[in-house]
């Protein structure tokens, strides 16, 4: 039972970080990052190839680059940095003055391209089979199978969550956050008021990308594997759904969305009996997510916890 609980908590933490990150980019700043899942993948792959031994070990059944067997926390720090670095070229793509729906589609297609390339170029990251036997952090010193380790992992995840939330809160509740929201509302007016749009967008891409990558590192350290199937483009849609449901622009909304959508769905369906052929339940999950998105966009587009109205003391 408690293994279930610790697993649930770690997944919840990962999803919270991912949702808060995308909320900073999309909810607060209006950046259409439909390629979001690439950042989580970069973090997972980076943490994996930095903590795994060289690919010739383990009988050489996997092919991948690097394999530096670095100790914790270096893989996680490097993963976060990798997410931030990747954000720069990708952010520059989004900076072209495209209609927002075109931007969204271009980003989505980029994530599909990335996935296809990784799948097809086997020596890079072991292609379709992906990476397995990824060592858990600190597993050289601790028994990673024990219940105590599970709780340690939960604690680590909570720590990372807390860090990301502090950063997100400080950004959102500051004049900088106000500027980001203005940019989201009406870019041209923000520029005409002296705001450097390029710098703002790139910065939020880097911040969000780093957090997403961290979530990937946490996830891969816990489950020990990562393959192209873990980061197909619909995964980005799940996170968007979480933000639409929970509340765009609001950090608490992002947390709520994370708990309701990625976590809530997984858990709710876990307890359903196996009806119909295997694969029916996951398919129905996706249908439900589609319906959820449409339902919320129609009835409550601001989400359950919309952005709060900010009043200042001493009003007239």
């Amino acid at each position: 039972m408690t293994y279930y609980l610790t697993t649930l908590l770690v997944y919840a933490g990962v999803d919270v970080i991912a949702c808060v990150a995308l909320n900073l980019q999309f909810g607060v700043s209006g950046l259409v990052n439909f390629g979001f899942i690439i950042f989580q993948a970069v973090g997972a792959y980076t943490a994996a190839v930095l903590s795994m031994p060289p690919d010739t070990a383990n009988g050489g059944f996997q092919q991948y680059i690097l394999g530096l067997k670095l100790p914790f926390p270096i893989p996680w720090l490097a993963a976060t940095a990798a997410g931030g670095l990747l954000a720069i070229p990708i952010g520059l793509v989004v900076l072209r003055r495209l209609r927002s729906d075109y931007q969204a589609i271009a980003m989505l297609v980029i994530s599909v391209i990335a996935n296809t390339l990784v799948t097809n170029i086997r020596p890079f990251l072991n292609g379709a089979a992906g990476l397995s036997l990824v060592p858990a952090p600190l597993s050289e010193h601790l028994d990673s199978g024990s219940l105590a380790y599970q709780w340690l992992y939960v604690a680590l995840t909570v720590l990372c969550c807390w860090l990301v939330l502090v950063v997100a809160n400080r950004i959102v509740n500051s004049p900088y956050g106000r500027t980001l929201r203005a940019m989201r509302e009406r870019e041209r007016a923000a520029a005409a008021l002296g705001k450097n749009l390029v710098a703002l967008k790139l910065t939020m891409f880097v911040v969000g990308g780093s957090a997403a990558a961290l979530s990937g590192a946490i996830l891969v350290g816990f489950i020990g594997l990562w393959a192209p199937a873990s980061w197909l483009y619909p995964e980005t849609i799940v996170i968007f759904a979480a933000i639409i449901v929970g509340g765009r622009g609001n950090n608490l909304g992002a947390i709520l969305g994370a708990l309701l959508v990625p976590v809530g769905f997984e858990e709710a369906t876990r307890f359903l009996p196996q009806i119909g052929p295997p694969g029916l339940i996951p398919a129905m999950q996706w249908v439900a997510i589609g319906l959820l998105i449409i339902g919320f966009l129609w009835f409550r587009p601001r989400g359950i916890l919309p952005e709060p109205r900010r009043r200042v003391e001493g009003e007239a």
Partner: protein
Amino acid sequence: MSHVGATGRGERSASNPPRSELGPLLVAQGVERHFEGVRAVDGVSIEIAQGRITGLIGPNGAGKSTLLAVLAGTLPASAGRIWFDGEEVTRLPVHRRARRGLVRTFQLSSEFAELTVLENLLVAAPNHRGDSLLGALLGRRYWGEDERRLVEQARELLDRFGMRGQESEYAGNLSGGQKRLLEVMRALMLRPRLLLLDEPMAGLHPTVVRQISAYLERLRDEGLTILMVEHELGTVERLCDPVIVMAQGRVIGQGPMPLLRRRREIIDAYLVG
């Protein structure tokens, strides 16, 4: 503040530091703007004198709004050069021009709808300690003082324009006239030297038009320079001196309104009475 001649009063405000020369604040030379084969602005050379409200009029499609956008930097010039306050700004992006005091407003309301009226003003303030990633991460202790100061400044502005009561309203819920006022106030938070107004009175009730005109005159008296695109000729006549007339992307006349009214080609171009 030296521009005594135009207004008869030499008032100086803290927001407009004295200038040593009496030269024009903005100079445009041979400015062109083409897009997809259309020459929206076709070789415009003008000078905007300090401390005056200059009008920019012309029939629909004359290129007035485009010219404004090019002067502000929202659109790049296809050819020509622009100087602001003695410095060439032709290649400078719009946000840098705004920081130097060349600020524009937009023809269609461009308020930040999901921010409150007060937030709309606060966001315009330049050089806020909390308006950077690092500043935000350092927290309220770091930028709280700047914020308090700015809130006061913004509230003063709101009081002046009679909108203090709407401080916590979402800007998107304001009436048309209030949005225009907000647009002007927002621009003023930047302490502009030259304000480019794109049809500030369009579609407004005559009472509101008079109200805004009075504000603009006061601002001019305090030393602000304004370039205003406007259709309502009565307003132009009351407020603007000089007036620039454009048609088909070119300037076809400049000068005080009464003189312009007499010129045949301008009447032909579009003046009706």
